[in-house]
């Protein structure tokens, strides 16, 4: 296999090294120098297109029918290779020639992740995981394309039956939906394991618990990202291997290709029962209390809005001011859940209002007091009551220094935005990233909040630390009324002196 691969490498090595070099050097250039976004976009499109074209040009890609550009499938099958060897050669060739596309991603990951998809930049470990998963995805897509190439010519002999095709499509939908549901359950259950550990820790004395909990929390906090993300790698590997075996099976047995078009209600019905019954049971059994609100029975009751249970727990002596590991006390949970009844009940029972969510949470929910949680819960009634309890409308959230007005813009609730404007908040307050509430509204494509803020007098010409106006964030969304509206506020109309 190595000698065959060496020959294939010779075909494409100049393209391979040229593209890798271009991607890396362009990535560095973009990183250190800021220049026209149009030129950046053009370079990115050009490089990505070249990466894909090099695959077509240099890889051994079998063609089902006679094709001037590629080896026909019949030629490749005629070579003295076993079926497994042939598949390995094809998959290796495709994957090798798509490596420049992976280098492309890493060279421009900041632009792709941050500017295009508005995500956070990846850490080193996340980059490594993404690289491995991307490679595995390339392998899987090569296997899929081979599978279609083997199966599709066989379908030429089958008479068109629209009912069969609709049935096959519906069956695929049912299977894919079940896979997604199982994945959701699987990753959700990883959070549950952490909750079980903390319940066990409670059996010890307070000092022991604090010490032990600190260790356990530390371990789980560090392992959790790895559990969630690193598991993708073995999952992808397993799936790739499974698809490889299916491909061999289809290749060896013609009947399998035709079986997918059969309407076998009994067989498919039994499969559906076998897949969905355990799924339904698991979903009904799994505690769907969000992790942020886990940690005590009272928090669970508040999440479920079970007021009878809440009253019973409080009557039994549940601690009204005990915070979970995210800093949520019961009254904070009630406010975040927009449960006015539970909030007033806990207030009447003496719950303290001075809790603040801690930074173990994600950065957008860290340092939130009761007012911020009330905004996030989107209940104007609770916001008014919390302010009446003496909270300061100007108080900022966490290290990011986010104001209540910015939070209201983030959740895109114009009613709450207008309420804070009437309360006289500082419209032009900038958070740690240098953006105002208008930047937030533009990023969230919230038209009504954008109008409310600009008509209240917010300055549309404030640039954040990335050097961008609010308008620049709105441009990324297509057919955006926000972009149209803000453009007129940000720039002078064409032709005007």
């Amino acid at each position, binding site marked *: 296999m190595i000698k065959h691969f060496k020959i294939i490498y*010779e075909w494409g090595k100049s393209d391979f090294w040229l593209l890798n070099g271009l991607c890396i050097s362009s990535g560095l250039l973009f990183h250190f120098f800021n220049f026209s976004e149009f030129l950046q976009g053009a370079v990115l499109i050009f490089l990505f297109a070249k990466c894909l074209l090099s695959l077509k040009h240099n890889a051994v890609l079998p063609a089902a029918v006679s094709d*001037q*550009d590629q080896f*026909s499938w*019949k030629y490749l*099958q005629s070579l*003295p*290779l076993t079926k497994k060897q042939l598949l390995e050669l094809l998959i290796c060739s495709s994957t090798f020639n798509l490596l420049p596309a992976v280098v492309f991603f890493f060279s421009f990951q900041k632009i792709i992740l941050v500017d295009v998809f508005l995500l956070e930049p990846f850490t080193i470990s996340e980059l490594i995981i993404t690289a491995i998963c991307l490679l595995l995805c390339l392998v899987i897509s090569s296997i899929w394309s081979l599978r279609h190439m083997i199966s599709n010519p066989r379908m030429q002999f089958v008479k068109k039956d629209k009912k069969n095709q609709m049935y096959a499509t519906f069956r695929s939908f049912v299977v894919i939906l079940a896979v997604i549901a199982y994945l959701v359950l699987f990753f959700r259950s990883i959070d549950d394991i952490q909750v079980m550990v903390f319940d066990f820790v409670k059996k010890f004395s307070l000092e022991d618990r604090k010490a032990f909990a600190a260790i356990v929390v530390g371990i789980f906090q560090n392992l959790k990202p790895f559990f969630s993300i690193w598991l993708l790698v073995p999952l992808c590997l397993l799936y790739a291997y499974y698809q490889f075996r299916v491909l061999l099976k289809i290749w060896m047995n*013609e009947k399998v290709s035709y079986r997918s078009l059969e309407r076998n209600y009994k067989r498919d019905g039994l499969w559906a029962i076998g897949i969905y019954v355990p799924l339904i049971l698991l979903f009904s059994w799994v505690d769907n209390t969000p992790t942020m609100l886990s940690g005590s029975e009272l928090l669970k009751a508040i999440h479920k809005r079970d007021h009878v249970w809440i009253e019973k727990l409080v009557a039994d002596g549940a601690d009204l001011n005990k915070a979970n590991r995210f800093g949520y006390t019961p009254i904070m949970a009630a406010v975040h859940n927009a449960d006015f009844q539970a909030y007033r009940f806990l207030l009447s029972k003496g719950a303290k209002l001075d809790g603040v969510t801690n930074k173990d949470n994600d950065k957008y929910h860290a340092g939130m007091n009761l007012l911020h949680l009330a905004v996030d819960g989107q209940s104007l009634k609770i916001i008014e009551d919390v302010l009446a309890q003496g909270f300061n409308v100007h108080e900022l959230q966490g290290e990011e220094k986010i104001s209540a007005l910015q939070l209201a813009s983030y959740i895109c609730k114009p009613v709450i935005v207008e309420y804070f404007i009437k309360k006289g908040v500082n419209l032009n307050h900038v958070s740690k990233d240098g953006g105002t509430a208008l930047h937030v509204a533009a990023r969230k494509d919230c038209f009504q909040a954008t109008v409310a803020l600009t008509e209240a007098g917010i300055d549309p010409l404030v640039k954040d630390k990335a050097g961008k106006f609010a308008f620049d964030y709105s441009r990324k969304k297509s057919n955006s009324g926000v972009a149209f509206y803000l453009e007129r506020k940000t720039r002078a109309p064409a032709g005007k002196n």
Partner: protein
Amino acid sequence: MTNILKIQHLNYSIPYSVTLLEDVSFELQSGEFLGILGHNGAGKTTLMDLLMGYRNKTSGVLEVFGENPHDIERQNRNKIVFLSQEVSLKGNLTIGDFLKFHASFFSDYDLNEQLHLMQVFNLKLNMKIGSLSTGQQKKVQVVAGLSSKPKLILIDEITAVMDPETRSIFFIEIERVREEGVAVILATNIAEDLVERCDRILFIADKKSSIHRPQEISALFNLKKAA
């Protein structure tokens, strides 16, 4: 004489669909030339696909060098070469690149044979395959195939795209390798390619097959006209 090919009561049907071949039986010895004739859609290419292991038989016995061609772990594949009009090559490679790639799979690949055939067919190593005509690309296939030193050559209508001179050269080379003990099966619509060349004819019609002598070719087709 070695028994290269053994077919007994071979049947092939497309799963859940039509039957293409019924009760085909014949054997092939080393050095023998078998022609396969039949009208369009008779099943000539299907039979070749079965011999190459591209499709799996429905029932019957099919052994090539003592193995089922469809087995995953076939051992004798390097003894077989397939020349077909349905085979295409990667256009951006030169002839030299392609022959180097092809040679890497055959341990007995003969560079002297390659040199001889390149001269005979008037080809150069630095020619790009994509720039060649269909007939020239088939010549490249023939060079690669015969240089691999096979024991069995399966030819599926490749001569249809060759000019008369090339076809003549091709059959001269085929005759030369036959003398070395190579067996040949040629599936074609061109009856003239088989007259005075092949040892036997396998005629396929209406899913059935029958063995004939080359002299009977005209009679076969006359019968069809009369029908």
